[in-house]
């Protein structure tokens, strides 16, 4: 979508509100609801999708008024960013809009936590991508492997020559910005943790294992997920996820595979429905004889999250239900680093090759 079209959408939204004001009505803005109550798992695309429930954010409502004001500020702020042809981080935008309301001691925004969800609200209601709004989240993803990248207006980067630091995923990985070339790999290994990614990269596992190593350093941002999707779609590479054996690690896998609840409006462009879960599972503990010392007892919070996930429709597959039940029954979780209890290179030399060889995956 071109800048002009995006700007028009923002202006139209403003015109709509102005019309209400001119008619003397209570100004209100209709937004899709972005929570568990209004998402569904789309069997066709195998991703999470946004439902059609909306809510009305009203100016003359004590509970909405501040948020309504903030939403309008975000819309106006976005228009300005596009007009100036700049690319701004969502943090920049927050500082740009934050000021003291005249004659009061109240700030328009107190924290970035207030502005970020409103950006997502507008993305969802106007049906535009964050990239189209010239907004970026701070990139944090890293890639290693046999692949060459050509950035628009730049030179070709050989990722295999990037050494131990790897290639940093830029915030915008859309085809207009980035071209993926000369891939020599059989699969993508999407790793939750930087430390584990670093172990694989240091051992040059991408060479031995013929794969591309990708990490989002925890919960992956849009760019890493979009990049993985392009590798899958354009190069036909399967994606395997390697996460901690705990409810949070499983949820990261689920976001990589079918998307997140808050970004459910654009998951078709971000999700990787064919991703498989390579590990870590609690069932691996017995299989690989991981020492008991490396296991961590589940806390209350873990159990609550586990119960929630057991109910998600996209986790209803029997293999996952079995893993959830096993975890609950045994009452422990494990981090990827637990494998280091066997030996430092156990994960690259024994664990992963065996998993891939025996195709011991969770769907």
């Amino acid at each position, binding site marked *: 979508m071109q800048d002009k079209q995006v700007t028009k959408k923002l202006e139209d*939204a403003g015109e709509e509100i102005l019309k209400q004001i001119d008619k003397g009505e209570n100004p209100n803005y209709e937004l899709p609801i972005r929570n568990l109550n209004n998402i569904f798992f789309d069997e066709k695309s195998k991703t999470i999708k946004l439902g059609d429930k909306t809510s009305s954010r009203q100016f003359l409502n004590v509970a909405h008024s501040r948020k309504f004001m903030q939403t309008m500020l975000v819309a106006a702020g976005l*228009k300005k960013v596009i007009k100036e042809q700049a690319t701004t981080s969502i943090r920049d935008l927050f500082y740009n809009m934050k000021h003291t309301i005249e004659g009061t001691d109240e700030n328009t925004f107190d924290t970035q936590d207030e502005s970020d969800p409103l950006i997502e609200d507008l993305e969802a209601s106007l049906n535009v991508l964050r990239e189209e709004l010239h907004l970026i989240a701070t990139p944090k993803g890293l890639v290693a492997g046999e692949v060459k990248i050509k950035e628009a207006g730049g030179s070709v980067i050989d990722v295999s020559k990037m050494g131990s630091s790897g290639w940093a995923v830029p915030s915008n990985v859309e085809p207009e910005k980035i071209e993926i070339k000369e891939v020599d790999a059989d699969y993508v290994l999407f790793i939750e943790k930087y430390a584990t990614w670093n172990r694989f990269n240091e051992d040059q596992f991408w060479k031995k294992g013929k794969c591309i190593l990708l990490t989002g350093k925890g919960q992956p941002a849009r760019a890493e997920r979009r990049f993985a999707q392009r590798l899958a779609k354009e190069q036909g590479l399967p994606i395997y996820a390697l996460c901690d054996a705990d409810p949070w690690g499983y949820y990261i896998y689920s976001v990589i595979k079918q998307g997140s609840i808050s970004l459910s409006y654009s998951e078709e462009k971000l999700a990787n429905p064919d991703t498989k879960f390579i590990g870590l599972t609690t069932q691996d503990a017995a299989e690989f004889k991981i020492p008991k010392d490396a296991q961590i007892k589940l806390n209350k919070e873990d159990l609550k999250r586990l119960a929630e996930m057991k109910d998600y429709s996209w986790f209803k597959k029997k293999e996952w239900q079995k893993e959830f039940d096993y975890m609950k029954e045994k009452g422990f979780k494990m981090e990827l680093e637990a494998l280091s209890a066997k030996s430092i290179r156990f994960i690259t030399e024994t664990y992963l090759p065996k998993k891939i060889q025996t195709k011991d995956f969770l769907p």
Partner: protein
Amino acid sequence: MPEEKEDKKETAGSTADDLAKEFKEHSVAEFFKKNRQMLGLTGKIKTLTVIVHEYVTNSLDACEEAKILPDIEVKLSEIGEEYYELYVRDNGPGLTKETVGKALGQLLAGTKFHRLIQQRGQQGIGAAGCTMFSLISTGKPIQVISGTSHGKAFKCDLTIDPKINSSKIMNLEDIDKPFKGVAIKAKFKEVKYQKSDQSPLEYLRRTAISNPHAKISFTEPDGTTTTFERSSKDIPKKPTPIQPHPKGVTVDELLTMAKYTKSRKVSSFLKDELDRMGDKAIEEISKSVDFDLNTDPKKLAWEQAEEIVKQFKKIQFIAPRLDSLIPIGEERIKKSIMGIVEPEFLEVVERKPTVYKGGFPFCVEVGIAYGGNAGRQAGTDEDGRNVWKSEILRFANRTPLLFDTGGCALTQAAQSIDWKRYGIKDFDNSPLTIFIHLLSVHIPYTGAGKQAVSPEEEVMEELRLALMDAGRKIYRFIGYQRKMAEKEAKRKMYYKYASEVATAIAELTEKKKEPIEKKLHEIVLKHLKLEEKKEAEEAKKMEGLTEEEIEREYEKKKGEGKKGKGRCKEEIKGR
């Protein structure tokens, strides 16, 4: 060993002997000297307040008797460590050279014992007790100046001879300057002045509230003078003493009365000295007791008196006369509280006199003052706004009760009210002054200290009814005030955001900000007016309701409040 035994025997014997001897030799004054707590003078801070009370009560009573509007000046100076000089001066009828000794130098000289009358009452042992305490703590006499409207004024030093419970007057001289009233200068040690809820200043403030006809000024040791002006020129009518009602008389009281009666027969004694005692009742009693009612009442034995009192409980009597009570009065209380407490809003309720325990007439007056300077200011919050605590001002027969707060029925009655029902969300932390006045010919104090009222069922009931009645009246005001404040806060909030919204819409649509903002303001005002109208309609619905229906509405609203959280969420619609 045997020696020890002998010792013990001797000690025991001599103790009993000594006691008897002491009892004979020692006067009432000597007794109180050794039992200071019986003067009501315990605690360094409380003692000072009780002393001020004794003098001021004397002045008020004297003025009332002489039908004079009292002007009372109290001054306290610190002259050493825990050493103070108190100066009290009134414009009353004054004491004469003949009466001054008895009034200020003889314990238990008052005429107030065994009388059923609404009276201020002593808390300790009267002004003579103060003279006594001055002597005990400093060894010094008190100084008195007094003058009546005719004849010369005089001054003297006065103290008590504790051995014979009699005054000792020294340095008596006439003075030439005209002087009317009594001025007393007395020194006290082992006392302490401290600003608190129980200080003389607070005591005088409350005294001024319950005595709107008095002007009282007080100078603290640091030189600060506070004057409580009179708000009424009506001198309270003198309450009439009433004869004890048979339902309210004890065996001991009956015997005391029998001792002093002029009647020659028990039957006529009962008829003459007790209220509502008719021939029919006498007949019933004579039938039920096993002794002759024609005997001399002075010869009445304890057991016989006991039997008579037992019969009183069984017989139905007409309720006692209620005209013996003189309330302060709704209007006078209002003026007084408005002047001294300075609240924003005030409701006063005066209940009709009634009877407790079948024999004691009593009456309650309550006031609820809210906002303004009502309550006690308890510092400021983080934003520098004043923080208020509520206060309960207790009075018994116009006398402030400052001590034993928790153990008093007046406090308990106020705390038993569900104040939330009357719009007071946090009773302890509200700008609230509760005035509670109990008047009776016989205040049911919990103890000899006379600082707390015991929770007699009928008294509690009356107190609660009065407080709830005043609460209902104040609810309308608080509710209205709160609504207005909420509305104004809402308007301010919408206006504040309107400015930002207008800026954003102006940027999005490339139009001017000002007209958009102006229109938003109009929308806000229209919206608030509509809300007000809806609320008014709802309030109208409430008006015609009975107490029970209001109760139900209240419970319903409470339930809605809990559900209210859900309403705050953005309204959900299907697309």
